[in-house]
């Protein structure tokens, strides 16, 4: 992994922590290939859709806990610690015991998505859990690429309310993920 790349991650995450939406998206997109590589490396033999599920669980965790990154701290350690923790959890939940030693990710090669497999079932199923309004928010922002403002307009609630609802929903999603509710 190139040091420049890691520096770029650190800058993006710092901006994302400060509230920059685009930096947040860029950061998540930038780390996705590496995280996917980690998941695939640990999940040898598992179906692509399952690996994509686990990858999305890791992304959700990284996003929700982004404020816990100390700007002075090395970002790779932070990222890999989360990935390791979540990957072990996720695979154990799906019935596969894996062992992930601490120094393992040093030479991970970034993995590209290739042909996108059938839509990851995990998160989609859990999203059906919350109420109808949240389902609309997810659909509008996630699938229809609507902005928060437009979504607020469509639902006749303020932007702040959309943000709050989205945040709460993502936290619930993380809890459902942790409890392995599918």
């Amino acid at each position: 992994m190139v040091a420049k790349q890691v520096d770029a991650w650190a800058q993006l995450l710092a901006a994302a922590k400060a509230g920059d939406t685009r930096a947040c998206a860029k950061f998540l997109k930038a780390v996705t290939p590496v995280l996917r590589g980690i998941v695939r490396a640990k999940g040898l033999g598992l179906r692509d859709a399952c690996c994509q599920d686990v990858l999305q669980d890791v992304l959700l965790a990284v996003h929700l806990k982004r404020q816990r990154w100390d700007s002075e701290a090395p970002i790779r350690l932070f990222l890999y610690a989360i990935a390791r923790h979540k990957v072990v959890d996720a695979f154990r939940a799906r019935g596969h015991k894996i062992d992930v030693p601490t120094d393992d990710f040093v030479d991970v090669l970034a993995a590209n998505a290739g042909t996108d497999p059938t839509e990851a079932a995990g998160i989609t199923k859990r999203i059906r859990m919350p109420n109808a309004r949240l389902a609309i928010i997810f659909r509008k922002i996630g699938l229809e690429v609507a902005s928060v403002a437009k979504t607020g307009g469509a639902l006749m609630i303020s932007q702040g309310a959309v943000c709050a609802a989205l945040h709460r929903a993502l936290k619930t999603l993380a809890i459902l993920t942790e409890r392995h509710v599918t």
Partner: protein
Amino acid sequence: MKTDDLIRMLAADTVRQRALRTTLTLGLLPSLAFVAVAVWLTLGFRADLSTALVTPLSVARIVLTCLLGVVSTRLALVLARPEGAQTARLWPLAALAGIALGLLVWAFISTPADARQMAAVGKTMTTCLIVIPLLSILPVAALHYVLHRGATTAPLRAGFVAGLAGSGLSAAIYALYCSEDSPLFYVTWYGLAIMGVALISTVVSARSLRW
């Protein structure tokens, strides 16, 4: 859901979380103030407090428990971060335990044989074993809350140090009432109470500190 769609959704979530240090201060300081007031109102501080505070053996209780509390709290903050599990060093805790045990041995040697039992059992053994854990409830809960808002990848260790921190600080406040000055008493019973709270905290954290 396609990963790109998920990322879009995650990026739209800009709600910011308070820094852990702030949450810690807002939670722990009022808890400790409450503990101090509770001790003062129900048990009262010892009458000879000003003398005790300059007596080495007596003040050693407060110093050691305070140190334990502060060191453990700092460790809890480190362990609250994902990479903390790799960077946290637990040796200061071992050092404190060593000092406490050293005091115990010294007290054992320097107390005449027939006075040892009385010094060890004291008059307030049961009070100590009950009150310190009770006082620890709020401070330990505050620390658990901070850890829960964090992202610990070592939940058991985090729960353990949270228990040590909360009960250590509560024991330091309890020592303002307690007039048992022999290490034979306080290393034994305060130590037992603290370890008991730390154990319960560890067990609780196995479930509560998942994320």
